[in-house]
Each structure stands twice: as structure tokens, then as C-alpha cells.
């Protein structure tokens, strides 16, 4: 395989990993606090729709981003209310959010824009466009390193850089700040947090809202950066794959990045392999290639990753008990 092809595959790996990474980090905050979130998918979808709609109406990608974060955080608030305040079942709440988001985005899309649930195609000025890093053009012809810098590192949109910057930032927040210490503690033993004089509910609310914010960013990426419009069900299970990556990564930020890159790579390789005929196998069926990330998810989650110990209080609403 040619070097240029490798760079191309890796480049699209990065772009395909970005929404996974944002959603998985979102899930990390929520689940570390003890609130399981199966609704990453729905929040991302709502964010994508809100971004597509707002960006096309106001013609600004930033309006889209704000709308996406707002929509996703609103759903996060619903999840927080259901699972923290009224102590409902977190899985049921998450599933409900996924359904609501899938239905509502299609319905509103059709009634507002009349394009079969899509939002209008965005002009360039209403999108987040690639950023040329300084010196990219100059080093382009330097052997080996040139193409890596120009083709792989430079030329992504803002979200990609933001997502990867969130990895060390999340690590620092979770493991080096007071908020992180309390976040980890409340996901392990909320009673210990409560008896230490810290409010369990407000801590979990904050975690779930951060989750909502990052899901919104992931959604905005899909409709205003990666694509140029919202299409029905455009998340296509990315929220669930992000959840799988989070579990695969055992709720650790750096591992989350690698897991998301792996899923992104499979996706990128899959696209590349379409129609290619391999020795001894022949033409690779498109469907098989497209199914690869999902097959890997099943295999990984079926226990090939060793025991993933979730936060001990995860999924359990906190009640004061004797």
C-alpha cells in the first residue's frame, strides 16, 4: 500500500473518531459519577439536528453549536431529573431519550423545512471548515514528516482539535482536581460523599450536564462540520459505539481515545476496502465491511477485554438508608 493511502486512511480515521471521542468522553463524566447513560446517541442526534437547523436559519455555524449544546443539555437535564431526582431507572430513561430524539428530530425537520426530515444544505460560511495549521503548505514536500503534518495533523476543523484536546483535559479534571476526586467518589460510594458533607445530587447533576454539553458538540460536528446538513438518524449508532468504547477503555480518558481511534480506523478501513478485491478472499462484500465496527463492538463487549469494572455505584439511584 502506498504511503499516501496510509495517510489518507489515518486522516479519515481521525475524522471518523472525533464524534465517538466526544460522545465517549461525555459518557465518561456521567458514568464516573454513577449515572449510566445509554442516551448518548439521542443527545448527539438532537444536537446534530439543532445545529443543522440553527446554522441554516441564522447562517452561522456558531449559532448551530450553541443550539446543539442547548438541545443536548436539555435532554441531559431530563435524564438527570429522571435518574437523580426521582430515582428512576437510568436505562429506561436513556432509551426513552433515544426514542424521543429520533422521533422529534424527524418530525420537526419535516414540519420546519419540508425536506423529508433533512435540514437545508449548509453553505460554506455556515459550516466549520478545515483549519490550515501554520507552515503546512511549506513542509508539504518534506519526505515522510511533511505529508504527516500536512495531510494528517493539519487541515481538520475546530471540533477535531477540541475533541483531542479534551482527552488530557478530562484526565486532568478527573484525576487532579477536587471536582474529579468527588466525581470518582460519588460514582463509587455516594454514601461516603454524603457523609463527607458533599451534596450527592448536585454533583451528579453537574456531571450529567457536562455529558450533555459534550454530546451537543459531537452532534454539531456531525451536521455542521463533518457533513453540511442534518439527515434523519445521522448518528447511526455512533452513540452506542462510543458507549462500547467507553466500557472497552474501562472509563479511563486516554484509553477512551485509543478505543475511539480503533473504531474510527475500522470505519475508515471499511470505506477504503469497499469494492477492493483481496488475495484469497476475492471481492470484499460491502455489507461485511460496513458491519466491521459493530462486529468488533460485540466481540469486545462479549468479554474479550478482560473484566471491565464499572463505577461501583453506577446505575443505582442514591437513597439515604440505614
Amino acid at each position: 500500500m502506498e504511503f499516501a493511502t496510509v495517510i489518507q486512511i489515518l486522516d479519515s480515521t481521525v475524522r471518523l473518531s472525533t464524534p465517538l471521542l466526544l460522545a465517549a468522553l461525555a459518557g465518561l463524566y456521567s458514568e464516573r459519577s454513577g449515572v449510566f447513560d445509554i442516551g448518548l446517541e439521542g443527545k448527539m442526534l438532537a444536537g446534530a439536528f439543532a445545529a443543522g437547523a440553527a446554522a441554516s436559519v441564522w447562517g452561522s455555524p456558531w449559532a448551530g453549536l450553541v443550539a446543539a449544546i442547548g438541545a443536548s443539555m436539555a435532554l441531559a437535564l431530563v435524564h438527570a431529573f429522571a435518574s437523580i431526582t426521582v430515582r428512576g431507572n437510568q436505562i429506561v430513561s436513556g432509551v426513552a431519550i433515544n426514542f424521543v430524539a429520533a422521533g422529534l428530530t424527524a418530525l420537526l425537520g419535516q414540519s420546519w423545512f419540508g425536506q423529508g426530515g433533512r435540514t437545508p444544505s449548509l453553505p460554506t460560511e455556515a459550516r466549520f471548515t478545515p483549519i490550515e495549521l501554520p507552515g503546512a503548505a511549506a513542509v508539504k514536500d518534506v519526505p515522510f514528516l511533511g505529508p504527516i503534518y500536512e495531510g494528517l495533523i493539519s487541515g481538520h476543523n475546530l471540533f477535531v482539535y477540541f475533541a483531542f484536546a479534551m482527552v488530557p483535559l478530562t484526565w486532568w479534571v478527573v484525576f487532579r482536581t477536587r471536582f474529579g476526586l468527588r466525581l470518582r467518589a460519588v460514582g463509587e460510594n455516594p454514601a461516603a460523599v454524603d457523609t463527607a458533607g458533599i451534596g450527592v445530587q448536585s454533583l451528579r447533576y453537574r456531571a450529567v450536564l457536562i455529558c450533555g454539553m459534550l454530546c451537543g458538540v459531537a452532534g454539531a460536528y456531525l451536521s455542521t462540520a463533518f457533513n453540511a446538513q442534518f439527515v434523519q438518524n445521522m448518528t447511526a449508532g455512533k452513540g452506542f459505539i462510543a458507549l462500547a468504547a467507553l466500557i472497552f477503555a474501562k472509563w479511563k480518558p486516554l484509553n477512551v481515545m485509543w478505543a475511539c481511534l480503533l473504531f474510527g480506523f475500522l470505519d475508515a478501513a471499511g470505506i477504503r476496502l469497499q469494492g477492493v478485491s483481496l488475495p484469497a478472499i476475492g471481492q470484499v462484500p460491502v455489507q461485511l465491511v460496513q458491519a466491521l465496527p459493530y462486529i468488533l463492538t460485540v466481540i469486545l463487549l462479549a468479554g474479550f477485554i478482560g473484566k471491565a469494572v464499572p463505577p461501583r455505584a453506577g446505575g443505582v439511584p442514591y437513597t439515604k438508608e440505614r
Partner: protein
Amino acid sequence: MENGETELPGDGALAIELKGISKAFGPVQANKDIRLAVKRGTIHGIIGENGAGKSTLMSILYGFYQADSGDIYINGKKTRIADSDAAIAAGIGMVHQHFMLVQNFTVLENVILGAENGAILNSAIGKARTELKRLEDAYDMHVDPDAIIEELPVGLQQRVEILKALYRGAEILILDEPTGVLTPAEADHLFRILQQLKEQGKTVILITHKLREIMAITDEVSVMRRGEIVATRQTAATNVEELAELMVGRHVLLRVDKGQSHPGEVKLSVRNLTIRDSRGVTVVDDVSFDVRAGEIVGIAGVAGNGQSQLLEAISGIRKARSGQVILDGEPIGVTGECDPGMLRERGLAHVPEDRHHMGLVLPFEENENSILGYHDKSKFLNGPMLNIDAIRQDAKAKIEQYDIRPPDCRLKTANFSGGNQQKIVLAREMEVDPVVLLIGQPTRGVDVGAIEFIHKRIIEMRDQGKAILLVSVELDEVRALADRVLVMFAGKVAGEVAPDTPEGEIGLLMAGITQDGAGRKGKAA
């Protein structure tokens, strides 16, 4: 001093005064018009049966619950304690019965949680380390600040809880049933620490249901019964018998009356049993012993030394790695093909250690639980259907015989008290006329009145010629009931002793110190 009263330590001022505290959970009045005065610089015991309202009262004091009515005075000043934060600010620290520690955090992280001193940890953690070291030296309570909690023995975990409270500047320390998880030696060390805290002017409130501890360490004691404080005494002016009577409200027999045992032939024989847990750690290591008809063999030991797994293997719940168990002359496939149902058919009854997780289905009605596991016996069946009438008749008979209260076989099992739940399990397992009876923790979380009854029943079973294997972490109980005592430590039988062996000697075996002077493994002092 008149009335035999002695001088109490401290300046006589009140650290805590509760006036008319009441608290109800639905129809249950957990605390009723509580009046309590705790003098500064003393150790004040609060004793009462399970469910007497001790923990509720302390939870109110620590801001975990809100009282329905009544006032709290701290150091003479009326204080409203809305949450734990307010309690901490008022100088109250609490060591809970179930430790409030984050298991996968380090000691230091646990200590600073909630008292971090700044949003970024790095700067705060250095200061915390110094302060923790100072506290450790001041109270002779050493523990590695970087150790992970779940890797520490429970005795040290408890020490972390105390350090946590002191780190927050607690002047009043509440300990809820602190010795339940400790060896006698660890308990003694805890008492020395409490004594030292008292000498430094701190006030200690000790909640327990163990009379001996009250006598050993407290200056004053308040007795709770059914949500009320029925008496407060100076410890020096009271005795165990009086306190027991105050707790239960009637005269109780603290000693178990039992005659000589008449052991017959071997009914249960355990040979070289080795068990590994799911992580591959050997938890029971080459254990052998016999239990004869008409005798009680007691297994003593600190919780977590393999007793639970041993019981589970013999009862067919857990697969053993190697070894043999012979029940009534025939081996059971303890390494493979036996299951609890099959063993039950062959005359093995089992009262599991944890009645909530193994012994009962709490949302079920009492009568359903009273036949659980025996529900496929023909007398409870009507073709393929359950014979509800027969089941309820049977349940009613057991309720009468075992004095289960309230006597209502349709009541949800969760609504019975701990002692009555335990009686439901005991009635079920004892009334099938077993050959061998395995009993784990017969009186854990059971009140004094019920303990007396349960102990009597166990002795009766022995005198009927049953072979009984008794596992309990309460050393007193093992010594009172058993005819022979095996002490388990780190998965092995550390020794066999007679039940009248002095407690100190058994305590040494429980800590893994055998005659040849081999010390205890692990980090406990």
C-alpha cells in the same frame, strides 16, 4: 459520693444535649421524645437491641436525617443540623457501621474527600499528608497514606474512618457498632485509642449492642428500647444484668443452659477440602474435620477467613477445588456434581449466613419463604400447582412454634424485624428433621430476646441427635453453644480448642498466632 456515684472525667459541661427528639418513618416511630445529655470529655455508651432506634438517633445528630421535632444543643448552643456538612462544622465526626470509604481510593484521598482545601489537588494533598502524619503520631494510629482502602484489613479501614473525622477537627466522635468486624485484639486497640481521645478532651459516643463493651470502656450509658431512652446510668453504678433487662424490658438469660453432649457416629466428615474463589485465590486450604450426631462443632474466626466459602461448599452452593465431604456415610460430589437441592433431599439443612441474600426472598410473603427450597415436597403440592392452603397451614404452625411476630403468614417478609426473619429461616430448616444442620451467623442482627430463643432451639436440635456445624463471627456465641471449637485463619484451621478455653487464647488463634509464634500475615497491627 452519694448513691455510689463516682466522679466523671471532664469538666461536667455538656457536649451534646438532645431535647425531645422524635422521628417517624411512615407508621414506624423510630425515635420518641429522646432526651439525652452527653458530658464533655467522657465516653458515653448507647445500648439497645437492633431496631431500638440507636442508629436513627445518631444519624439525626450527624445530619443524615432530619428530626420531626426536638432540639439539638452542641456545647450548650442550640444548633440546627441540616446535613452532614453542618454536623462536621459543629465538630461532630462519625464512624459508621458500614464504613463510608471509597474502596479504590487511597487512604489520603479518602481523608481529604470533602475537605480538600482548594479546587486543584496537588497543592492541597501535600498539606493533608503532613497533617495526617501529625494526627497519626498524636494518636498512635499509623496507616500508610498511599495504601488503597480495599487492600487494607478492616481494622485499618476503621482507623482511616477515625482519622477522617479527626482531620475534620471533630471534637465529638460517634462510633456505630465499631467492633463487629474486629478481632478481640483489634477491638482492644480501638478501645485504647478511644481512651486516649478521651484523655485529650474529646467526647466519644459509642453505640453497641454488646454489653461487655459498655462495661469495659464507657463512663455513662443510656439504654434505648423501642425508640425511647429508658434509662441513663453511670457505668460504674450498673451491671450487665440490669442493662440487659432494661434493653429487653424483661429478665433475660444471658447464659446458654446446656447439658453434656452425647456425640454419636460421624454424620458429616470434611476431608482435605480446598476452595478457590473466582480470582483463583485459595480461600479454604486443606481443611479436615468431623461432626458427630448430637454435637455442635463451632467455627470461630474473624469474618473473611474462609468460613463463608466453607459453608457454601458443604451446602453445595460453591464448587470446591479438591477434597471430599462425606454426608451420613456417603460422599457428596463437592468438587462437581452436587447441588443444594440434592443435598437437601439427603438430609442436609442450611441456614445461610446472609439471610437477606441467600436465606429469604424479601418481597415474598412469609408463608412462601417458609417453604422455599422445599416447595416441591408432595405435601405442598396439588398436582402441578402449589397447595396454598397446606402451605399456609404449615406456615401458621411454624409461626406459633417459633413465636414469629407479627403472627401473620401473609405479611411481606421484608416487614419482619431481623430476629423474626431469622426465625423464619430457622423454622424452615429445622422443621424438616435434617441429619446435618449447617448454621451460619445464627444471630447476626438479631435482638437479645430472639437470641435467647434461637440458642435454645439450637441446643434442642443437638439433644435430638442432629449433627450441627455452626459458623459465627461472634466468639461469645461459638463458645456458648459449641461442644468443640475450630478456629479458622487465612483459610486453614488454626487450631481446635475446648469452648471453655480463655478468650485471649482463642483470640490469638483468630489472629493467626499459633504456639510456634508465627505471626499474622497482612498489615494489621
